[in-house]
């Protein structure tokens, strides 16, 4: 039976990308000087604003007196087509927190706290993955010591093919998808979040696709950080004159 869609006919997706292609990434640092670190991050049409406040005084004490990390993941009410009011997803916030806990050097600032707030102003799929990417850029902008640059991507099965960096139309429904986060583009995952049902034979291929896409995203994030460091170095050089 012949199926008429671009996936089978031309091996490309409806937005013109190949299955393993990620979307365009744009960023702008230092949008809100009031926060210690802030970044405006775009991955395709998904737009995220991330602000980092810290290290600050904390009344909450963790065991071992390590740095306390607080994350909030917030989807604004005009971000997607169907959400009625602004949602603060607790689950996504927890995942973000667990990812960042393993990345931030918590023993560098004992008895303090670091707050990471992400606001999605336009959601076009891969919301959690974009937030993780934005958060890693914002942490670098805030000057908080990290073990490496985290990058994350959302992969799933659409129309029978494994696609990376899903957009809104591909994310909806009961298709299986994973959000995979890695450190420094290496092939070791620091966070995997998995939804719906997938056959065990497909699992390995999906994770491989996730690692490949993460290498690409890590390359973009690293470039962003180098550009920002150059920019800041020029500002510091001018000040010293």
């Amino acid at each position, binding site marked *: 039976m012949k199926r008429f869609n671009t996936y089978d006919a031309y091996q490309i997706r409806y937005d013109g990308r190949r299955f393993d292609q990620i979307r365009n990434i744009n960023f702008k640092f230092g949008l*809100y000087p009031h926060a210690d670190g802030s970044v405006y991050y775009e991955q395709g049409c998904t737009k995220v604003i991330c602000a980092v406040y810290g290290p600050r005084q904390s009344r909450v004490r963790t065991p071992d007196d390590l740095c306390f990390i607080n994350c909030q993941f917030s989807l604004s009410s*005009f971000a997607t087509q169907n959400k009625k*009011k602004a949602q603060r997803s607790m689950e996504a916030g927890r995942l973000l927190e667990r990812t960042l806990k393993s990345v931030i050097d918590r023993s560098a600032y004992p008895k303090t706290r670091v707050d990471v*707030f992400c*606001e999605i102003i336009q959601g076009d799929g891969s919301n959690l993955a974009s937030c993780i990417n934005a958060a890693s850029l914002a942490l670098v902008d805030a000057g908080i010591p990290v073990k490496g640059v985290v990058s994350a991507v959302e992969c799933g099965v659409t129309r029978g093919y494994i696609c990376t960096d899903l957009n809104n139309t591909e994310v909806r429904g009961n298709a299986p998808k994973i959000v995979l986060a890695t450190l420094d583009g290496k092939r070791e995952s620091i966070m995997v979040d998995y939804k719906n049902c997938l056959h065990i034979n497909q699992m390995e291929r999906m994770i491989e696709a996730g690692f490949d896409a993460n290498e690409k995203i890590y390359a973009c994030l690293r470039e962003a950080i180098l550009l920002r460091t150059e920019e800041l170095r020029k500002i510091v050089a001018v000040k010293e004159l």
Partner: protein
Amino acid sequence: MENIVDISQAEKVYAVDGIHQGLRNDGRGLMDFRPIVVEFGVMPNTHGSARVRLGQTDLIAAIKLRMRQVKDTEDFSNRVDFYVTCSAVASPDFAGKHGDECAQRIASLLRKAYRNNVILPELKLLKLSKDRYYQTKVDILILQYDGNAVDAASVAAKAALSDMKFIIPTMIARDKGKTVPQMPSKARSQLKSLDISNVPVIVTLNSVGDNTFLDATLEEEQCVGGVLHVGIVPKEEENFMNETEIKELTENCYITLLKNTKPSIFHEEKFDEILTVGIEAATELNRALMLRIEEHKREPKKNADERIESFMGDLQF
């Protein structure tokens, strides 16, 4: 709002002394606003949107129309709903539920100001048939807070309403009095927008002792004694007018909101003065906003393919 920034007693005395002499910390006069930047159409997936930067206060207003089906649209007064969110990005004190209290205050002020039939006479266009109507929801997201969010929110709401575009579908009747919408064939040429010349603008007046001033920054908000919000509906003006006629006109406009948010007492004589100052300021603010809206309408229409450069662009303060 009270626990964002702590300033010392000495700083408060310094600010208040300056106000009594007619000077403010950043060099403005008592009746000067900070520079306001208004951008339209920043959220392409909504029916209308605007981003307003009032000094360092940054907020986005977006309008979504939702078609709802009810038993009888006559029972529903077609009003504009406001929802305000203080994003945690603005301050860590807004994380969790703490930001909602501040947001509720701003939303209720806006709702009060919009609760009458004079402001949007064309709103009845949104009642499509006996059982369906478009519900208008204005969502305001505060991204950075540096005082005077209410004024910025009212400017953003008006700007977003001016940017709103929608299509009135033809309603086809079905059984039992229900109707079904059908989009017209050439949808792009049938975009309608509302006439916003009567939409209110709110101005916040802060008073310290005998002096009143406009547009308080975050630090100044901690030192004020009384806060009064005045919302006016501007009257129609003809294009060619000289200075003397304008003075008379400011005394004849509708007031849609008059609310005192900080407990304080205004003496009867002072009150008239304060009110006139407020009305004048609001009329000026409205005039400037209408000029900007006209300027935006006269710009050549952008293609749908062009990027929206609002956050990526270079315009920063």
